[in-house]
């Protein structure tokens, strides 16, 4: 177990370095942060002066090396735009994003798994069809469109919920539901498929034939065995969720990490971009590690070596 963990963490560190290198290359290859910082009347000479003062004139590898060295010591540098430590820019926005991501995850599990079970149980019947429609919309409609429709219906026409901002529970509803629809769609489909496979197994028939009623069979015998693929998908889907967070935050003016990162990318504020990439990648890696570890709880036959 310990060896497994050590190996996984070492892999994750390598992945982080790879991800930051890719981000660094892209941010650097497309546009000059100094030119973007200065007002519209600045001369090329003034841009060069600023580049020098920010250390952007050093060779690419030297800049990246310095970043890795400092990051290893917990220092992600200073935001070029905000004059604050880059890690602080990202982390002050993290609670808002966590609120959205956790909220959407909970709602999508609470919504997606039961819907999947119901659809599998009533295969080919009306419930199954209705679920398919729900899944189809969630998976095919872009999040920003879902978000705009939600604002249009619930904020403008019905005046039920505030269209933007963060602070009250009411403000959380629209962004979480929008994001959750998207995430739960795949979860529903996976649960349904996985349940259908399990429901055909011999032990389900055995359980039924020894007189157990339908609901305990589904929840105790079938769901537990169907859960592993669903959980895997959930872990992988977490990346999609983080992507969806960026769009959701923009549509609903939610002051989170996603918007901080997008703003930083627009401005080529690379310390913030890199700090953001590290935080997001760490979250993704951590969630998937937890998912892998939870297999053992669901299926005692699984061993970590």
């Amino acid at each position, binding site marked *: 177990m310990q060896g497994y963990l050590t190996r996984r963490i070492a892999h994750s560190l390598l992945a982080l370095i790879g991800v930051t290198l890719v981000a660094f290359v892209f941010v650097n290859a497309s546009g000059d942060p100094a*030119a973007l910082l200065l007002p519209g009347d600045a001369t*090329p000479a003034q841009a060069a002066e600023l580049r020098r003062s920010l250390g952007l004139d050093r060779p690419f590898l030297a800049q990246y090396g310095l970043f890795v060295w400092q990051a290893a010591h917990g220092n992600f540098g200073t935001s070029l735009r*905000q004059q604050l430590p880059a890690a602080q820019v990202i982390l002050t926005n993290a609670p808002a994003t966590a609120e959205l991501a956790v909220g959407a995850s909970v709602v999508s599990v609470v919504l997606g798994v039961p819907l999947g079970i119901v659809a599998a149980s009533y295969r080919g019947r009306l419930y199954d069809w209705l679920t398919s429609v729900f899944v189809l919309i969630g998976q095919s409609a872009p999040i920003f469109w879902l978000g705009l429709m939600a604002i249009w219906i619930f904020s403008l026409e019905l005046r039920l919920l505030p269209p*933007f901002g963060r602070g009250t529970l009411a403000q959380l509803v629209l962004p979480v539901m929008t994001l959750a629809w998207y995430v739960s769609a795949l979860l529903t489909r996976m649960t349904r498929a996985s349940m259908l496979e399990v429901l055909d197994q011999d032990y389900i028939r055995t359980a039924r034939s020894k007189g157990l009623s339908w609901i305990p069979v589904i929840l105790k015998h079938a769901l537990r065995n169907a859960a592993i693929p669903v959980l895997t998908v959930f872990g992988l889907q977490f990346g999609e969720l983080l992507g969806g967070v960026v769009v959701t935050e923009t549509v609903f003016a939610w002051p989170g990490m996603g918007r901080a990162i997008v703003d930083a990318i627009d401005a080529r504020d690379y310390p913030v971009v890199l700090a953001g990439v590290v935080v997001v990648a760490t979250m993704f890696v951590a969630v998937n590690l937890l998912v892998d570890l939870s297999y053992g709880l669901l299926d005692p036959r699984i061993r970590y070596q």
Partner: protein
Amino acid sequence: MRHAFKILCTLVCVLILAVPGAVFSATDTPVSVAQGIDAQTLDPQMDTLGSSTAIFSNIYDALVMVDDTGRVVPALATAWRFVNDTTLELTLRRGVTFQNGAPFTARDVVFSLQRMMATDHPVLTHPWIADIVKNVVAIGDYTVRITTEAPDAPLLRRMAPWLILPEDTFQKVGAQEFGQHPVGTGPYQAGQWVKNDHLTLNAFPDYWRGRPRISQVTFRVIPEDFARYVALKTGTADILVNLPPERVAEVQQDPNLRVAAIHASRTIFIGMNTWTPPFNKVQVRQALNYAVDVDEIIQTILKGHGYRNPSSVNQTTFGYCPTLKPYPHDPQKARELLAQAGYPHGFSATLATTIGRYLDDVQVAQGVAGQLESVGIHAQVAQEEWAVYWGAWLSRKQPGMYLLGFGGAPLDADYVMASHFDSTRRGIYYNSPTSDKLIADGRRTTDDAGRKQIYCQLESYLQTQAPWIFLFDQQDIYGMTKRVVWQPRVDELIWMYDATVQ
């Protein structure tokens, strides 16, 4: 029982009607302004985006201000005179205090300007002052002398965005902390700031012009156009910056809302890299101006929300030459000129455009490209993200035509000349000895009438040289609730001191 119920109902109704009336009738109801992006820092020398300067003008003051008619009026300076060609002496206002109670003196002016001048770790407002101001000295507590590198007629207008910081406070807390909790002499003090959500400004009771009538102004950040519009419709925002033109009719129909539009100081044009063929030929550049039907672009694409401008200087700006006539739309003439230049069958070139930086920028570029097609010029519209576009532009790598906007403070013709046509400053896509000389004359001449004459000559010369396809000045459109009385400004500032609530 039924009677009691009736009374209760009436009471409830009265309360429902009366309470909001009582709460909202006072002039000190909070007002909220919705913009698409937030300030990056509240240190005004480290953020020069228009949306940020719009906020800063409420927290800080400059030495002078430019009023609605383009006149320079006193702010922290009460009077000024040129001691000689290159020395301006300013008398400062007495009895002004910063929001933390510290007195405002000449030291603060010297400190703020010297911070802008420093070159070792330049602040972002450095380009506004670099190569212009040579030295700033205090003479006593309430007099300041500014020496310029050369005679500089636009100097006073330039000073409008130079905001004054408190030296002692700044030195004590340091730049980083100051950027989060700023202190100025302006009408509003910065309160709670939740990045990318809102910034609350509270009235500064001891403001030298008198206490602001609105006690609290909140700047809200709502990036999505539609969400911003819904915020206005539902009354959560009172002033909405950049109302999309397609929403204008809807807002006008709403009994609680109105539209405020203003001729903006930003000019949209299509520049050309005049060093590369075919744009190095003046006939080609003129042909492009004859080929484009600017009025049609304004009517069909901008739905009338733009002002045709035959000149390179914005029409709201000092030095605009009102006698200039635009190029007529004449495709036949364009073809003749192209033939003279050696391109009887036209040519292909790129037309780079920003994406969403200016109102309908991509559509305008596509419209122009469509019109050029009719005289045989095949313009490939390249939509470039701003970072890519601007990086290339500033390193002189825009190969053909480029759509760009230019404007804002200072509202002086020298600003656009310096940034686009002067070989000694940033004329990196076009310059010529004739225009250089006129630009230098305009900058040196101190009497306004004389300057205007020089700019007329210069603008008409530039028109025949056609380094741009001259297009239009932008219109800034704001959506507003009717309860707020506020006037938009040419320079895009959101100056809330003069605003009131009905």
